[in-house]
């Protein structure tokens, strides 16, 4: 899932200071699961902003809203009545949700309340780890299900760099070397041989904005229909 962290309070307070009525819009999917932007966090942030506004004698009011997903137009529609009343919307969704909200409601200023951090997994309550960079050229079959693009800071595709030390990464002695993990995993499943061939340079066309149409819907979105 997508993981995000709340922006520093000061930054949020400053961005919203000029608006009288602010809707704090939570999102009930990824950012809720990572305890950053669900209904509860939206409520807490609104309460904090209210306290800060009072302390600074700003006449502001904060309302809370939360929808299932801000990355789907149908759910965004549910926010319309609240947004109509608002001078600004502070979205706690991931970057995708914030943008879609801004696109759907172009008349109202949209403020970002979170920094979207990565695609990752939920290790235990309150802990997430990055696992994927959405590179559009997945090598996991080859690398024992461990992503060198995300877990190796240098994105090495043909084996570890010379800085790998005692299973740790040259960038941080606390960080596992991705290639140490890959090598151990492949050894366990007897698949080290798969690494012998040189992996060619990766296709970086993922720098272009992505758009994807499901093959079954190609006709629907083709120019002809």
């Amino acid at each position: 899932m997508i993981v995000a962290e709340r922006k520093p309070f000061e930054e949020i307070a400053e961005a919203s200071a000029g608006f009288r009525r602010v809707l704090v819009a939570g999102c009930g999917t990824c950012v809720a699961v990572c305890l950053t932007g669900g209904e509860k966090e939206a409520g807490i942030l609104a309460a904090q902003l209210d306290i800060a506004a009072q302390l600074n004698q700003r006449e502001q009011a904060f309302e809370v809203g939360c929808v299932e997903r801000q990355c789907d137009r149908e759910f965004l529609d549910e926010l319309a009545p609240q947004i109509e009343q608002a001078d600004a919307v502070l979205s706690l969704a991931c970057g995708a949700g914030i943008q879609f909200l801004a696109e759907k409601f172009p008349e109202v200023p949209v403020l970002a309340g979170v920094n979207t951090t990565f695609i990752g997994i939920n290790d235990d309550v309150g802990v997430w780890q990055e696992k994927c960079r959405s590179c559009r050229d997945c090598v996991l079959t080859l690398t024992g299900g461990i992503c060198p693009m995300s877990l190796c800071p240098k994105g090495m595709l043909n084996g570890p760099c010379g800085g790998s030390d005692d299973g740790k990464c040259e960038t941080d002695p606390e960080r596992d070397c991705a290639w140490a993990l890959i090598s151990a995993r492949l050894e366990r499943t007897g698949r080290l041989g798969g690494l012998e061939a040189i992996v060619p340079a990766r296709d970086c066309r993922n720098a272009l904005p992505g758009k994807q149409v499901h093959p079954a819907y190609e006709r629907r979105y083709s120019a002809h229909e």
Partner: protein
Amino acid sequence: MSKLAQALDGGKFVLTVELDPPRGSDLKPLTELTSSLGGKADALVISDNRGAVARMSPVLACHHLIKHASAEVIMTLACRDRNRLALASEMLAAAAGGVENLLVVSGDFTTLGDQPGAQPVFDLDSVQTLQLAASLEEAAFFLGAVLAPDSTLMGMQALKLRKKVQAGAAFFITKPISNGEGLGALLAQAGGEAPRVLAGLELGPEEDPAWAVELARELKAQGQAAGVHLSCPENQARLPELAGQLAL
């Protein structure tokens, strides 16, 4: 064929010395250091933003040394700072200026340097960069790469060695070592024909070089290395004197 390649082919136990381009735009000190090294070293390895700290481009530094000090240089090229376009253009520029030896390295990670927020490029890794260099018809480099003999990931380092050879590496320089054990083990594990390896010997600013001389002798006697690569990153002024002792 470069002088370095010839020396290695001729079975000479070679000595290379590592020099950094200046942190400013004055090339005089580097040129002087090169002259005082005289003929003690077979080649000078000119580093590329070593430690992820910005210095003068090694392309220009190499050109200068070739032109004004008739030096035999090995130009280092790190994957950290350039994408494949920039890597290719640097290679072409180097070739045009007479650089014949190229050492491809991954490069220390950006966060370890003086601009920790810089974008780490790593568009290609070292194996792919070697492939790129080998594929350039306009520039026939004598290609070198790095080995990490003392790594705990011996199997993986051996794999990379094989891949680098396959990608076109004709010689190797090891990361600093303090004995020949790791290197021996790595080469044994990698199998195949033993590549030409220059053993990295790094000395502290004041360190007594006796051990390094001893080790170089040993490596030479046992035929474990084709030469040694000397560095003294914190006190490069010492290099001429050290090179004198290490030229066997």
